[in-house]
């Protein structure tokens, strides 16, 4: 039996408030005409909702990432509207796909060209650990050449997983202390990768 055709005869009127997600106010003291809060919270709030990702897609994870950016999953909802293809403008390096050993220096070069503060998300089994390519030609995880903030497992990960990983990046960005990048620990981390 044929399915009856349904018409949307009672459409819900669009409400602008449904389309805007409002960020919660950071903790602080508020009074008449003033609001006092910590600078790092305000900076973090601004940063985490306007991350510019730098896609470094080499294989099938890159295809999945296209779905993340497209209308169904829509990473733009999280403020990552603007993919930049110049590392100098970007905050988040998203490495998606198998990185061969010959590609390693290029990933590192892109990372070095990004300005601080910068974050790195390794998407998929290959970028995180080499994945199934346990072989002489493949880098066994990009954390051998650059520090990684969030690993998204999967082969390839579902777009939901990528969004989850991205939201964890947002948490890191939002809670980061303003002085973290000057700390001895952070400098030591970069030193361990041979980055000044």
């Amino acid at each position, binding site marked *: 039996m044929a399915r009856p055709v349904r018409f949307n005869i009672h459409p819900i009127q669009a409400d602008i408030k449904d389309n805007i997600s409002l960020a919660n106010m950071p903790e602080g003291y508020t009074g008449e005409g003033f609001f006092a809060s910590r600078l790092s919270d305000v900076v973090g709030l601004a940063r985490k909702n306007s991350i510019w990702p730098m896609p470094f897609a080499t294989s099938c994870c890159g295809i999945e990432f296209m779905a993340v950016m497209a209308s169904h999953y829509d990473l733009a909802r999280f403020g990552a509207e603007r993919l930049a293809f110049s590392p100098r403008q970007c905050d988040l390096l998203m490495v998606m796909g198998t990185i061969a*050993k*010959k590609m390693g220096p290029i990933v590192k070069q892109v990372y070095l060209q990004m300005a601080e503060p910068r974050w790195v998300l390794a998407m998929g089994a290959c970028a995180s650990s*080499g994945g199934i390519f*346990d*072989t*002489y*030609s*493949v880098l*066994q995880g990009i954390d*051998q050449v650059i520090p990684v903030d969030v690993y998204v497992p999967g082969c390839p990960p579902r777009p939901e997983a990528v969004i989850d990983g991205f939201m964890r990046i947002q948490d890191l960005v939002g809670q980061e202390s303003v002085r973290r990048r000057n700390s001895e620990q952070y400098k030591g981390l970069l030193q361990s990768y041979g980055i000044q």
Partner: protein
Amino acid sequence: MALTNETIKDRLIAKFGEQLSHFEEPYGLLTFEAPRDLNLKVMQFLFDDQELRFQFLTDLTAVHYPDQQGRELAVVYHLHNLTDNIRLRFKVFTPSEKPDVFTATQLYSSANWMERETYDFYGVNFVGHPNLKRILNVDEMEYFPMRKEFPLEDQTRIDKDDAMFGR
């Protein structure tokens, strides 16, 4: 008259005699073995001969036979006669201690990169090659990964438990 495998074989034997051996025709592809020092002479003859005209090098690679003492590495040439559309294949064997084989770059320009690849993966030293260095692998690599004495897996990993991977 179309060129046949028989004709090619007869011409080769007439020219080189007993030096060529192991004539076979698996799947209709004429295959034989030549001594290592003769690879250029055989190719030059196949290239220049007015009837044979094998003027296209389809493929050049190597095979590692670790069990064959003194002839561990086989360099395989696939030649193509584009006029008569007929192919042949021949091998030269070389010991892995001294894997020197004359380069085919003077005859076939396409041998340049293929010999670099063969050097990259098997360490065959092509004597006379204009630029014999690695082409696909990283320059820092210190071994020839397709030789059987080297494990396929990346050896820098410490987090993989061999028992979990059936090794």
